[in-house]
């Protein structure tokens, strides 16, 4: 069950905490993975950690439209195989209350977190539709559903990602290509690790399962949606948040 032997997967934002775990999980299940990110040294290190086999990296700055457009092609070139799986995990935040939010904060987050995943989906779908197979998993966030003070831009992008994925799922369904969303809750990563303990405790108290999430919790959900076994699941959002928001 849930093996990915012979499949080729592109994971964006692979140098981050969650992306790293997703890439490692898909790789462990037999997939050839292409890691994309902005930090070349980190990506190189990760490829090494994966044993060097079935693992490649491509650097890309997804705030540049042209780089987003070209990434799928570059990934296929690196792996020497067409893409079976696309995981849109790259994203960034520019948190601040709306009153203080600059146009640039809004535009940058919408661009990297919503427009660039769309560009990647569009590029990947072209081949997937032709080959009559493919899996796209978009990483959103619980705040796309619940909202979050200080994240008007990020939550809008993540909610937009859900609507986009549902539309793409309808367009691609007749070709056996599925498009789904994984919406993580509060996950411990280097980025969130710096929060004060008091704040982490407060967050934990709101989670029925009594702990913060691990990147691996997200990766397992992504893995499921990438498998043959998930072939009748499309347009859905899998919430991985410890029960913090039951939606």
């Amino acid at each position, binding site marked *: 069950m849930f093996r990915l032997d012979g499949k080729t997967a592109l994971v964006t934002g692979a140098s981050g905490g969650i992306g790293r775990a997703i890439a490692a999980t898909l790789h462990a299940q037999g997939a050839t993975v292409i890691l994309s990110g902005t930090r070349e040294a980190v990506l190189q290190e990760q490829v090494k950690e994966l044993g060097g086999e079935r693992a490649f990296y491509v650097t890309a700055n997804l705030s540049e439209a042209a780089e987003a457009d070209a990434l799928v092609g570059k990934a296929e070139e690196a792996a020497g195989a067409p893409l079976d799986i696309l995981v849109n995990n790259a994203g960034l935040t520019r948190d601040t209350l709306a009153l203080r939010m600059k146009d640039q904060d809004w535009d940058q987050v919408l661009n990297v977190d919503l427009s660039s995943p769309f560009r990647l989906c569009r590029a990947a779908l*072209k081949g997937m539709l032709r080959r009559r197979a493919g899996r796209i998993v978009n990483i959103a966030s619980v705040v796309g559903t619940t909202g979050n003070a200080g994240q008007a831009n990020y939550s809008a992008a993540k909610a937009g990602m859900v609507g986009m994925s549902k539309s793409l799922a309808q367009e691609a369904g007749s070709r056996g290509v599925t498009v789904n969303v994984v919406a993580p809750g509060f996950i411990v990563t280097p980025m969130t690790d710096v929060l004060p303990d008091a704040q982490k405790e407060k967050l934990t108290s709101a989670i029925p399962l009594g702990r913060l999430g691990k990147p691996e919790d997200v990766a397992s959900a992504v893995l499921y949606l990438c498998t043959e076994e998930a072939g009748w699941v499309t347009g859905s959002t899998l919430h991985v948040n410890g029960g913090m928001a039951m939606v």
Partner: protein
Amino acid sequence: MSEIADKVKKIVVEHLGVEESKVTPEASFIDDLGADSLDTVELVMAFEEAFNVEIPEDAAEKIATVKDAIDYIEKQKAA
């Protein structure tokens, strides 16, 4: 048959997996050749790529038959 017509026919055969004899000028992609809406979009994109032309959305909507495609591309190429 013109070179363009030949190439269009070839793309249609390849893309829709239909027999060459069925790809007559009057054949409708949807009604006669079994294409769905996604196929027609993919066909238009294949024509764009093969002939290095841009087919805007409103023009693409009017391309229903093999002949429509050939005529449109021939016109673009002549212009």
